[in-house]
């Protein structure tokens, strides 16, 4: 099991076991990279702790001047990480619907990861979630969602 914290469209993986990252990489065909005390996608590595409106940030032109963690800057600029594009994108471009179902005390995702910005059953954009990635079953167990 590997903890996955998605904050305002930013992914942070917190491995517990020695093989967590390697197994995830093998299952997903990608390479998570270390960033501080967590692992994340290559496009989210080395992001600055500020954005200047009009300046490039993670490949996109920032709309707001803001100082903070990358996930705070993504929130302020209305961005999320796109699993499909492998890049930061405006959250308005995400039009997929989240496939999750409630199982007793938690949610299970119908896809391996839930795309931030995708819509819930009630039509709200899921921007953050707290979850565990089950590498044995290759599925995501979600404790809670947040729409901000």
């Amino acid at each position, binding site marked *: 099991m590997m903890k996955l914290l998605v904050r305002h469209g930013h992914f942070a993986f917190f491995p517990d076991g020695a093989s967590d990252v390697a197994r995830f990489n093998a299952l997903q065909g990608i390479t998570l990279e270390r960033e501080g005390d967590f692992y994340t996608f290559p496009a989210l590595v080395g992001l600055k*702790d*500020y954005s*200047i*409106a*009009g*300046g490039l940030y993670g490949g996109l032109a920032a709309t*707001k*001047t*803001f*100082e*903070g963690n990358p996930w*705070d800057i993504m929130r*302020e600029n209305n961005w999320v990480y796109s699993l499909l594009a492998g890049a930061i994108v405006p959250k308005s471009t995400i039009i997929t619907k989240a496939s999750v179902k409630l199982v007793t005390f938690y949610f299970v995702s119908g896809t391996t990861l839930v795309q931030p910005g995708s819509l819930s059953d009630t039509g709200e954009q899921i921007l953050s979630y707290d979850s565990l990635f089950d590498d044995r079953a290759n599925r995501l167990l979600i404790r809670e969602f947040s729409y901000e």
Partner: protein
Amino acid sequence: MSKVLPATCLAGVVTCEGLPVPGVTILSEGLGQSSGLLILEEDSKTYVATNSTDIDGLLSQVTLALTDVANCLENLDNSGFWIAESSPKPPVLGPTITSIRTEISNLNIIKGALK
């Protein structure tokens, strides 16, 4: 946490990384060209001019002016210019000129020691 970035300011417009940054609180007049620091803390933006560059420029101007005065006095004093036969015969301004040149040296020392 806050982020401190080098910036410039002219006519109330703060520029950082080549981009104008609107909505910045400028802790000085902000009218003339200045270099300084943009301090970001979440969405708060503050510009502080580094006034050592202003003082450096001011000292340079004062030094130049005093040098001109000293040179002018020296030229006049050495040209043998005097008003009347009864007036003291030049050169008579040597001590004054020496004093001005000492002040210029002192100003250059201060300029070199600006923090």
